[in-house]
């Protein structure tokens, strides 16, 4: 790693002030993504601001029955939190499908949102990459692109966001609370991550000098009918090729009252499309209705050769996840 300075912040304002005074600085929480990228010379901050001492470690119920999760709650503590296990098991499942127990002990809620793509070319500082060096080119388009995007890609970038947790947060319609020099604001999860377009260097809509302070889940948790299905090259400790977060509410007659569907591993952000969810509302739970929703969610999907298989894989995974969600009865 290139030498860098280190400072520890105890309060949010202190962290923001340090950041404002040091444009070369970056925040560090669990360090599991940032240090990895620094070892590869992909990230070269001149200073790290340690935010692990900030008072953002709590999980609390909100006035309207939701759950507010401090940005520094570890992925392990969040997945095993009694309220998350009981009311948001989709989120617990998605977190536990990611990384390893060691990494989940270290990784933070805020850091998970901001982890960067695992595109091989992004990680190799010796080759061009529009995300790492805007304007340098994208070798993935015509190169090895087995893990790359099938939806929402641009001429400049076909990278995918690798998080599992974020796929569940998208389906649950979480919000992201951030603090910056101008005060606090709240970002809908759907607007947090962005598509690459002609600015692939920007993964999300957080400003450089802003800090994530919390993620809030609305009261609706889909505890009864949900599934997180992750398809990958080995059974554990691997990133998703395709993942699906499916959540349903069913009427007394079995028809679908409310549906949420989000995909991971296929785009620059967790992929949702309200049209797919609309197609499910009022429908019975069967292969036809699930297949129609899958087709709608995958509309416009395009492969780049090595990843062509992901389109059919995603279609089948969506149907399977919806079947699992529909048949589930309550939480264990």
């Amino acid at each position, binding site marked *: 790693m290139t*030498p860098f*300075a280190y*400072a520890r912040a105890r309060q949010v304002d202190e962290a923001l002030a340090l950041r404002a005074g040091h444009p070369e600085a970056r925040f560090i929480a669990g360090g599991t993504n940032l*240090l990895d990228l620094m070892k590869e010379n992909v990230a070269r901050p001149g200073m790290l601001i340690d935010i692990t001492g900030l008072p953002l470690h709590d999980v609390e119920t909100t006035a309207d029955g939701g759950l507010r999760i401090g940005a520094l709650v570890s992925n392990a503590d969040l997945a095993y939190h009694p309220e998350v296990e009981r009311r948001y098991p989709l989120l617990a499942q998605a977190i536990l499908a990611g990384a*390893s*127990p*060691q990494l989940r002990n*270290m990784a933070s809620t805020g850091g998970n949102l901001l982890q960067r793509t695992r595109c091989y070319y992004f990680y190799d500082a010796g080759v061009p990459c529009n995300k790492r060096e805007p304007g340098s080119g994208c070798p993935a388009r015509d190169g090895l692109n087995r893990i790359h995007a099938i939806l929402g890609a641009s001429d400049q970038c076909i990278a995918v966001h690798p998080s599992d947790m974020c796929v569940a947060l998208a389906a649950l319609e979480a919000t992201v609370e951030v603090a910056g020099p101008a005060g606090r604001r709240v970002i809908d999860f759907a607007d947090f991550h962005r598509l690459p377009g002609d600015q692939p260097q920007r993964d999300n809509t957080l400003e450089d000098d802003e800090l994530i302070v919390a993620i809030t889940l609305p009261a609706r948790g889909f505890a009864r009918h949900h599934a997180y299905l992750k398809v990958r090259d080995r059974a554990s400790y691997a990133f998703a090729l395709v993942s699906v977060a499916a959540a349903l509410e069913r009427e007394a007659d079995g028809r679908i009252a409310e549906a949420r569907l989000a995909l991971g591993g296929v785009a620059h952000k967790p992929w949702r499309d309200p049209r797919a969810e609309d197609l499910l509302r009022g429908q019975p739970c069967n292969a036809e209705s699930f297949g129609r929703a899958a087709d709608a969610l995958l509309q416009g999907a395009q492969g780049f050769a090595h990843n062509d298989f992901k389109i059919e894989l995603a279609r089948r995974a969506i149907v399977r996840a919806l079947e699992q969600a529909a048949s589930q009865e309550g939480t264990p």
Partner: protein
Amino acid sequence: MSATSPTAGAGLPAAHSISLTLNGQPRRLEVQPWTTLLDLLREQLQLTGSKKGCDHGQCGACTVLVNGKRINACLSLAVMQDGAEITTVEGLAEDGRLHPLQQAFIERDAFQCGYCTSGQLCSAVGLANEGRAHSRDEIRELMSGNLCRCGAYTNILAAIEDALPACREGGRS
């Protein structure tokens, strides 16, 4: 807050002093900001039991316990562990008696080259502390952060299964 103090020597950012409890011993240490916990252990303190397999969080050979929780020492900065209680494989035995997991690894022949073993052991102690593994499948899943290039998985699994009850009774970290 401890912001950077005046730059020391060759124009490098300042070192920081930290306090640790390392395998039961209080330690006060000077560390550079970019020194990982793994490099501190291996290069500065000669505790070479923790191994560097990948240096990227992908193999688990560097697993140690921080405040009883297993982490990858290669992806953690030493300077960020100020005040922590750290246990490495060197600290698992007590009063000359092997930890039940160490004993079980020997009895079950749970290693070949041994390179992954210290990480497997610390990870398994963390697993026992978490108390989430109740079946073989759960042990397998919750030990998936530790790769074994020699493929000793079958015996590692058997050893952990043997030792978990003793770990629960002993409550040792």
